[in-house]
């Protein structure tokens, strides 16, 4: 039966002081990373939560590289009438409000909560400089074409009950429904 043994093993091994402090040899660091990756994938790939049908983590909707602004489901074309459903889970025991941030390709999107009410959102352009320094190398490593680089971060505020879920729906809008960020560039002389 599927379980989380690989993840448990990987985390147990990573308690070693070398892993905690980052003082291990390179091949050991590689081994830690590989074990964590195996454990993460085993725990995520629908093996443990087969009874959840609609919102399972299958190959089409997983998004483990959100931290480098790469998320295929959120970058999908929403102009064909489809909507992106985001389920937000709060693992803490108190109600939280926090900003959700996902990369999107189009500026013409709107965000609604589970009642269908539109909520305030904000678009932030992905600046070339920040994307370049962070993502070019990783994207090349992953074989991701530069042509699919998203143009914006879509941000909105999510409120989630203790140990609970909230659902938000992102869909295309006829016009830019979100409040676009104003961008101001200040240039200063460098100090010596």
């Amino acid at each position, binding site marked *: 039966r599927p379980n989380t043994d690989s993840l448990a093993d990987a985390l147990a091994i990573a308690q070693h002081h070398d892993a905690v402090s980052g003082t291990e040899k390179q091949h050991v660091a590689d081994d830690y990373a590989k074990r964590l990756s195996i454990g993460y994938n085993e725990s995520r790939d629908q093996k443990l939560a087969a009874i959840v049908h609609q919102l399972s983590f299958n190959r089409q909707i997983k998004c483990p590289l959100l931290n480098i602004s790469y998320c295929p489901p959120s970058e999908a074309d929403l102009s064909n009438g489809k909507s992106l459903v985001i389920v937000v889970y709060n693992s803490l025991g108190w109600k939280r409000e926090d900003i959700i941030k996902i990369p999107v390709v189009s500026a013409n999107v709107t965000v609604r909560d589970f009642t269908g009410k539109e909520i305030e959102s904000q678009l932030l352009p992905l600046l070339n400089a*920040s994307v370049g320094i962070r993502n070019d190398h990783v994207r090349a490593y992953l074989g991701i074409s530069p042509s699919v680089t998203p143009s914006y971060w879509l941000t909105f505020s999510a409120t989630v009950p203790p140990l609970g879920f909230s659902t938000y729906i992102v869909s295309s809008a006829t016009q830019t429904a979100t409040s676009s*960020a104003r*961008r101001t*560039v200040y*240039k200063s002389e460098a100090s010596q």
Partner: protein
Amino acid sequence: NDTIEVGPGNLKLIYSGNKGKLTQYFNSRSSVKESIEQSFSYYAGDDGSVDKQADGAYIFRPNGTYPIQSEGQDHLTVLRGPLLDEVHQRINSWIYQVTRVYKEKEHAEIEFTVGPIPIGDGIGKEIVTKITTSMETNKTFYTDSNGRDFIERIRDYRKDWDLQVNQPVAGNYYPINLGIYAKDNNTEMSVLVDRSVGGSSIVDGQLELMVHRRLLHDDDRGVEEPLNETVCIQDVCKGLTITGKYYLRLDPLGEGAKWRRSFGQEIYSPFLLAFTEQEGDTWTSS
């Protein structure tokens, strides 16, 4: 007026328009107002040629500290909106920083991207970011103990023995897993981190975090290789580029602990997102 105010909510960060630098932190709710600076610098790694002890993975043995100046024109890009404001700063070709101030939050979020650290000059480097205020912290600061209690640290002093200071920087460095803070008679300055880093307060009123390092010598303590990790794509190897966030908040004296505890948990357990798609408006509430 030569100043740039950032932040849609109670917290305002003031930047100098001339220099493109952070100059002031102001919270209109708590009335905390503090002059503040933020900068990057690096410690040069000792090569061990003098006392046989090189700077390495285990041993922090700096050989001088050097400020990192912005290269050429310092670009400050400000993005404003109803939920948050962002300040983008390209410090140089290998340091990029985004500062975010949220409408509903009373802390600043600073996201740093550092690397690959250049080593063409043959010098290993340990990169730190420093937050400097005029607070009179009297050699005292506090660091977490593996995410648990914050423990008092006094610069150049140990409670249990007479400390002979041979390493004025390394001897005062501590592991930071949750955060670091310092206080004076009026204010607490807290910094929480989203990953383990090194940290200290080498100067009163200043907190620093070591965010990245790349060294060229083995410290001869068992790891048997320099801390010089690279990633190679098609036989082209580069030093690592790292990214991370830290969170800065100033409170009236005695009011910072609640934020350090509750928000510290939220950093450790961020929202978990799952995605799926639906056709049209067929979603039923759940």
